[in-house]
């Protein structure tokens, strides 16, 4: 069992968080506190408002009611410090920049040094493609570049919106093994939206299961395994029972 390196005063408190579009509720009210340094997975039915939730935490959208507090700061203030980063469903790479320049952009925008760029390129398996432009990459490679960009600024808060959506199974397994130690080493608070229950159980220390729209919390589960976690874990009884628990919360007959 691993003790998360809790950074005091940096937890994320969502209080009465609600979002409506044209009077129709899409989210909430949600009262959740994300513990600093922990990795939390958000799972829920398609279209339930997971991405909206992530956008509210990032300060990209404003809540209709309630608030998001990161430590004592608003998301916008955290963003201004360069302490926030996010990987979107759409890789959002700039077509005129090379892979290396796109990844370094994350450091530049956060006003941090880009020393780690080459290590990250190797980590996400893009060595040899540094000078390629996004149009010359496959969908999965673009997404890996976007993940590297989100990590290069060493954020305190890392938001991942289905980061491995179009990454091939092999690379996905490798990233599942190599990325979590990386963001844990940096004590980043990570919130990840995912459709894969396996991935949620394998990568996170806490899983929040959301209901159909408007999303509310139907289950809040903690996931504790011996570290470091490996793919072998998936075959174990403990993993499977945790997975069944999540699926039941999602309303799937197990």
């Amino acid at each position, binding site marked *: 069992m691993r003790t998360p390196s809790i950074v005091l005063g940096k937890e994320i408190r969502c209080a009465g968080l609600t979002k409506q*579009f*044209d009077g129709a509720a899409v989210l909430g009210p949600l009262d959740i506190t994300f513990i600093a340094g922990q990795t939390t997975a958000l799972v829920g039915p398609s279209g339930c408002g997971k991405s909206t939730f992530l*956008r509210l935490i*990032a*300060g*990209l959208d404003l809540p209709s009611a309630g608030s998001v507090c990161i430590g004592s700061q608003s998301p*916008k*203030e*955290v*963003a*201004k*410090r*360069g302490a*926030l*980063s*996010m990987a*979107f469903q*759409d890789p*959002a790479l*700039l*077509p*005129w920049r090379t892979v290396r320049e796109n990844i370094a*952009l*994350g450091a530049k*925008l*956060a006003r941090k040094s880009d020393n780690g760029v080459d290590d990250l390129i190797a980590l996400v398996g893009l060595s040899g493609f540094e000078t390629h*432009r996004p*149009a010359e990459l496959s969908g999965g490679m673009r997404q890996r570049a976007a993940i590297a960009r989100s990590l290069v*600024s060493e954020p305190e808060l890392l*938001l991942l919106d289905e980061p491995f959506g179009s990454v091939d199974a092999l690379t996905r397994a490798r990233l599942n093994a190599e990325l979590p130690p990386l963001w844990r080493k940096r004590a980043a608070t990570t919130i990840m939206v995912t459709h894969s229950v396996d991935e949620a159980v394998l990568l996170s220390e806490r899983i929040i299961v959301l209901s159909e729209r408007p999303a509310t919390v139907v289950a809040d589960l903690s996931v504790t395994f011996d570290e470091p976690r490996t793919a072998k874990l998936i075959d174990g009884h403990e993993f499977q029972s945790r997975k069944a628990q999540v699926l039941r919360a999602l309303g799937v007959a197990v």
Partner: protein
Amino acid sequence: MQIWAGFMTALVAISLWGGAAHVFSESVLVASPSGVWAFVSSNSGLLVRATLTTAQNAALGFVWGNIAAVIMAGLVTMQPRAERVVSASALVIFCLPLVATGPILRVISGPGSAPQIALAGLAVYYTTYLALLVGLRAMPRSWSDLMSVYGRGSFMTLITVRARASLPYLFAGLQIAAPAAFLGAMIGEFTGAERGLGVLTLRAMRGLDVDATWSLALISATVAVLAYALVGRIGERLVGYAPVIILSPPKPPTRRNIWPGIAEMVAAALFLLLLWQVAMDVFQLNRFFAKRPGDVVRYLAADADARLTLWVALKETMAATIPGFLSGLLLGAGLAVAVILFPKATRVVLPVAVALRSIPIITTAPLIVLALGRGATGTITVVAVMIFFPTFVACLQGLRQAPQQIIDVFHTYGAGPVRVLGAAQIPAMMPALFASAKMAVPAAILAVTTTEWLATGKGIGVLMALTSTTSNYNMLWSCIVAITLVAVVMYAAVLWAERMVLAIYASEQLT
């Protein structure tokens, strides 16, 4: 291969031209290739000097006009609330009839090349402004999200992302602007310059020298085509990547409150009236010819005959403007669609389109009117010729930006080119079509008033020319106000239609 095709096209064109010259040999309409060659070879020194003078003025106007456009578009992108005031002011200044502004600029600056440069700049700033504005907004939401996540504001987004993303659009605008600057410089030379192609053209037309008129038209068309091609080549080099494809989700319906919009329009109107008054006072222009807003109001309120004259002329002008405007847009969009359906047609259509657009309207208008008669048909044709080219270029670019993924989906179902066109490419063309419609409003009015002045002797164009020669400056300024109001109303109609259509097809363009 390409050179060979170009050579064949030129050969066919010259043969057709020779045939036409033979058929029309009795008229004063068509010069023969041999006549043009004789004129060019015996006046080569003069023509080279004149071309260089005009090209230099056009280049300076091109630079200044585009700098202004870039500043305005940047300002509006960062402060979207300023758009209505900036766009309205830009539009009104662009709509000011050259028959009136030319002489005024000449009075302000005295002899020299300032009016030519100013008119060249005025001819380009508006088209570049609109094209660039579309480009600066053509950004997927995830890019602005990326900037927000790092706490970067609108200025950093403009510098890092929008400016670079807008390059393909900027160059499409600059490509249209290059021939327009040349045309503007030539019109500027009509106001009393000492040298340049415009001066020679005016002299040739007054002397009914058909060979000279055609030679000058050909030279100016060649220069304009070269400028167009050069800007295009530079653009290809600089842009260097496929333009961004935007698949934006439709925006939720916006609130129906119209008051902020009306308040902005009133603010724009007040700003312009103030600009008018202050500009006249700052330059201490003589009140005899430089009327202020109050003078126009007093004149029109007191004189019922004047109001009637103005109304009759305005009706005549509108009868040609609106059909010409619509047919020009239809022709431009239609040709762009034809080029997409039959890609091989590009090589023929594009040079003809550039040439038609860049031969100065001053020389084409009388020729077209002579050929089609002094009725509405002739004027409508001039308007259509004037505006179809920018529309064609913009629509072609829009059609080519249709997302390949969507086209692929259609292809997997075995859909034919017409189906793909209707479902994917025409929707992608919509922002470009409306941007061109906005540019076409002032262009149509310029074309109609110039044709009326030079050829048909009807409508507000000729009323302005008459009143400026008879020193009835109250009427001249009333005409300017009336024609500007018409432009603003047409522009507002385009905006309204744009909002309806783009809310579905390209919501990122709406603010």
